[in-house]
């Protein structure tokens, strides 16, 4: 595995590096596609900026509230640059809320925007999985297939690479030219369905996911739920065959 990328005296961690690169590609791709749809691409960058800022601040506040005794004894820790001192789940939720607030305030049609973001999201996820493979943080079940990789004492499925291949295929599918007049939000719904289905199927080859009672892989169950949510959205968007104009909708 290659958990670090050596550039002279610098040892850059591959996992965070691919995450940062993926996030940048997500924003750049989304901004460009949004402009093609007649939206202001700057809104993508601005929403991304506010999301990161809100996520970092909110994640730190929640972490401080959770471990108040430690922060009260050393208040300067509130300003620590240590990325481990963040409530990760809450940070992501706060970041998403901040982005939604910004977009709603500027009247950006979210369904059309999500369509613009969908291919870049799939590409960013592919990069994240590559980072997890390089760092060895994600790994597959033991196997004897010819393409198995040796890791942590066993020959294993290169499960992160399977997922990366699926996400690249999803990105290519979403990037294909489409006929005009498609319902706004359809590409995003496709992305959610395809990604969820890929996790439902491919996480069967992973050995590092959290388990539910009975040995059920939690991420496969989440994939099933995501797929059903996508199908519910598709049901709402499905019509009698007359596609609605891509007007977008505010959520």
């Amino acid at each position, binding site marked *: 595995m290659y958990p*670090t990328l050596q550039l002279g005296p610098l*040892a850059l*961690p591959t996992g965070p590096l691919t995450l940062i690169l993926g996030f940048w590609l997500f924003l750049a791709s989304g901004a460009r596609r949004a402009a093609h749809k007649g939206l202001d691409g700057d809104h993508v960058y601005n929403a991304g900026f506010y999301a990161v800022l809100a996520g970092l601040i909110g994640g730190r506040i929640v972490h401080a509230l959770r*471990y108040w005794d430690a922060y009260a004894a050393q208040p300067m820790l509130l300003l620590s640059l240590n990325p*481990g001192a963040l409530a990760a789940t809450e940070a992501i939720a706060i970041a998403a809320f901040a982005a939604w607030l910004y977009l709603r305030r500027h009247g950006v049609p979210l369904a059309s925007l999500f369509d613009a973001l969908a291919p870049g999201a799939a590409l960013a996820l592919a990069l994240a999985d590559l980072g997890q493979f390089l760092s060895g943080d994600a790994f597959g079940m033991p196997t004897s297939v010819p393409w198995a990789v040796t890791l*942590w004492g066993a020959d294993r499925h290169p499960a992160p690479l399977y997922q990366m291949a699926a996400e690249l295929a999803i990105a290519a599918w979403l990037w294909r030219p489409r006929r005009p007049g498609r319902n706004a939000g*359809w590409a995003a719904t496709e992305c959610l369905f395809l990604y969820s289905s890929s996790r439902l199927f491919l996480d069967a080859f992973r050995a590092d996911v959290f388990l539910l009672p009975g*040995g059920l892989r939690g991420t*496969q169950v989440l994939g099933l739920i995501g797929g059903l949510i996508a199908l519910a959205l598709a049901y709402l968007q499905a019509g009698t065959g007359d596609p609605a104009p891509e007007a977008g909708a505010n959520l």
Partner: protein
Amino acid sequence: MPMSRRGVLLLTALILIAGGGWIAATRVAEPARAGLSPAPQVSHPAPDFTLTTVNGETLTLSELKGKSVLLNFWATWCPPCRAEMPYIQAAHEAYEGAGLVVVAVDVQEGREKVSQFARELGLTFPLALDTTGQASTTYQVRAFPTSFFIDREGIIRSTFTGPMTSPVLEERLRSIMQ
């Protein structure tokens, strides 16, 4: 092209049946979960090692089973390691009675240098000497400091690369002190 509602309902039924069946068919059997090989990864048994401490005592990680272990790889030349040591010392003092063992593994330095460092910072937990670098290689330590939080069953529950502050320590200690 957007599907008809009938098509969506059919696909939903297919996903529920096939997806649910696949999840059940590929669930992890108990022996597979129990038979994970030692690896420096969360949910894996911590790889064993035997080292000598600065006091000349032999320390074997597997003999600490039954205790919660904070395994910390560091070096005296590493400023972030120096920065986090007071927090580790505080955790040692606070939780030693509750069954926490701190094992700080110095990588490829001499006994005298490590002893002097410990005296300067008032460190009282075990300081092991990985003079050959074998232990740090086994644990795939790429940067200092790197910490592994090992529960009473010898399973790694959390890892952290970089200097830990007290809230970060507190959060990760909770995963092994239960």
